[in-house]
């Protein structure tokens, strides 16, 4: 596989606490890479090193085949976990401003922003001040700003936090579409539910060390414990008779998850209110 980014034995210490201890990861081009781990494991520190916000104490970061330089950072779009934009500035204005700083012309930025705003159905926010928007709305704006200049590598730190399931679904679709368009995505989270839907590969960091890595498929197979699930749309009696043929099998009906219910109800509502 071709790797757009690899870190080689990266270490970072703060005063008496080691944030990263010999962490080596390899992010495949055109894939979604899940950077997982509990709170305080060192995920954000690693991302900050990749963005050259902090320097590693030792180790190396290779981007696109060469050691990472300041110029490469222009090819990285970063959505930090602690979101921040200018609160008093109008949404459209600051999106154009930030796009200009990333090297886009004001005209291109406006055109591309208009497309994205229409896609996300947030055109009416263009002239609103950021502080007038709710947290989720601000997140949407910041997501667009992060990917607007179409960087090769996109880093999302907990992109779904603060989103309702409908918007989370919208975002997920966009992330998958971005991958299919050839972008590489590093997705950092401690919320495992979304990992399976989204990620191709993962790296798990615990207590500053890399403890697990590989494709989602591989990792899951590695931890297989011999349980199987039979999926069928049937009636209860047939299911029971099937279960009886396997010693020790248990049986329960599969009910939809609350997430699915939320999605169904809210998107149905949206459709009826539109028509």
């Amino acid at each position, binding site marked *: 596989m071709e790797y757009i980014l690899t870190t080689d034995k990266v270490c970072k210490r703060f005063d008496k606490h080691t944030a990263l201890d010999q962490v080596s990861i390899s992010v495949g081009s055109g894939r979604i890479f899940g950077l997982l781990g509990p709170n305080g494991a060192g995920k954000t520190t690693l991302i900050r090193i990749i963005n050259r916000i902090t320097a590693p104490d030792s180790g190396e970061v290779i981007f696109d085949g060469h050691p990472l330089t*300041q110029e490469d950072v222009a090819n990285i779009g970063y959505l930090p976990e602690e979101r921040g934009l200018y609160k008093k500035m109008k949404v459209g204005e600051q999106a154009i401003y930030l796009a200009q700083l*990333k090297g886009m012309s004001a005209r291109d930025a406006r055109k591309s922003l208009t497309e994205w705003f229409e896609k996300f159905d947030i055109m009416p926010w263009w002239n609103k001040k950021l502080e007038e928007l709710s947290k989720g709305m601000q997140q949407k704006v910041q997501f667009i700003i992060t990917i607007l200049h179409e960087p090769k590598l996109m880093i999302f730190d907990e992109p779904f936090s603060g989103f309702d399931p409908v918007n989370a679904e919208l975002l997920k679709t966009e992330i998958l579409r971005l991958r299919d368009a050839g972008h590489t995505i590093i997705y950092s989270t401690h919320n495992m539910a979304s990992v399976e839907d989204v990620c191709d590969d993962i790296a798990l960091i615990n207590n500053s060390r890399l403890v697990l890595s590989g494709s989602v498929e591989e990792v899951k197979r590695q931890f297989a414990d011999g349980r199987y699930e039979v999926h069928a749309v049937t009636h209860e009696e047939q299911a029971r008779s099937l279960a009886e043929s396997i010693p020790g099998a248990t049986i329960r009906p599969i009910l939809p998850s609350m997430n699915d219910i939320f999605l169904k109800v809210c998107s149905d509502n949206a459709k009826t209110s539109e028509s």
Partner: protein
Amino acid sequence: MNKISVIILREFTTRILKKSFIILTILMPFMMASIVAVPFILGQLEDDEESTIAVIDQTGLYGDCLKSNERYHFVYFDQLTPELRSDTSEITVVLQITDDLTRNPKAASLASTSEIQLNLTEYVENQLAEKVRHDKVAAYEIPELENILNDMEQEFTLTTLKWDNDGNESETFGDAALITGCLFTFLIYMFVMSYGGMVMQGVTEEKTNRIVEIMVSSVKPFQLMMGKIIGVALVGFVQIAIWGVMLALIFAGASFFLGADTVAEAAASQPAAGAGAMAMPEASGMAEFIAMAGSIPLLELGVMFVLMFIGGYLLYASFFAAVGASVNAQEDSAQFTMPVVLIMVFGMYAAMGSAGNTDGPLAFWSSMFPLTSPIVMMVRIPFGVPLWQEILSLAILYGTAIGMVWIAGKIYRVGILMYGKKPSFKEMVKWLRYK
């Protein structure tokens, strides 16, 4: 467009389009003008009020010395009637003189049912004192004594002259120079303080809302810092230009409607017109003052003002930017800015102290020391400063300012992305080397 100009444009436009900025910029000249005008107008109004004073002179000596004018009307009575004591009559104040004042100075008293105006007390005192003095002089029975005494009181003023290197002679005009110098000093002080603070606030805002994390991926921190410093400076220039034009218009308008003399008188009567106004002799008219101002090296003053202004602002603003980047919250900045603000305040005092002796050691050294030179030098220039001193002072100031910008750029780069803990010296050194 170049990235730094994008940043400058944003810093400039967002500030200049703020409602608070627009309102303050427009209202300020009116406020300044009204500070001058209102007390003056009120003073005029008071003059129109006429009050009647009853005089009960038991000695009969002072009948002619109290002359009525448009404000005070003196009416003579033989004795105190109960009617005068009550507040029903038109007469509000009663002056009683019971004895010859040359022998018994305490024999005169003013009485009223209400509070007596200070102006009236002064007026009566002066009139009586004049009369007493006259009587006393007459008592010596020396011929022409009155004239001799008057002659002795003849005032004179010293003309101060300045010889330049070629031996040319020109009159110097201390008062006008002093006021001009103080005005420019104050402008620099105000500007550096408020706009330096604005830079710091902007930097801290960007740091605390984490927007820098996405900015540093596209711009160099140094560009970010300089863009902010320059953008804010432009805001300041625009504000000062607007104020200057508006004040000139208000002044011109007021002169047109009220007559130039009234306006000049109002402006001259105003102690706030400059700390130096106290030194301005009341007798000297505005016309004379303006003539004096004409002798001040205006071109030199203007050029030096702009240069000192830019240098001083650059020095302080970059310092403030570094502080803003190092702290985690606006409130924490005080411990860093306090010493510097104290130095500036010291500069202000040094400027006032130097005003009395603009070539003294205090004036010289504090106009060389870069942290105070922009403030102090402006006081000295109207009095004439040797060119080598101006150049030396500017060189030191700009050298320090550029050094400060360089250091601030380094500190900024480290500090702006540092959260939670103070950056250690070791870490700073590493960042200095980090390309």
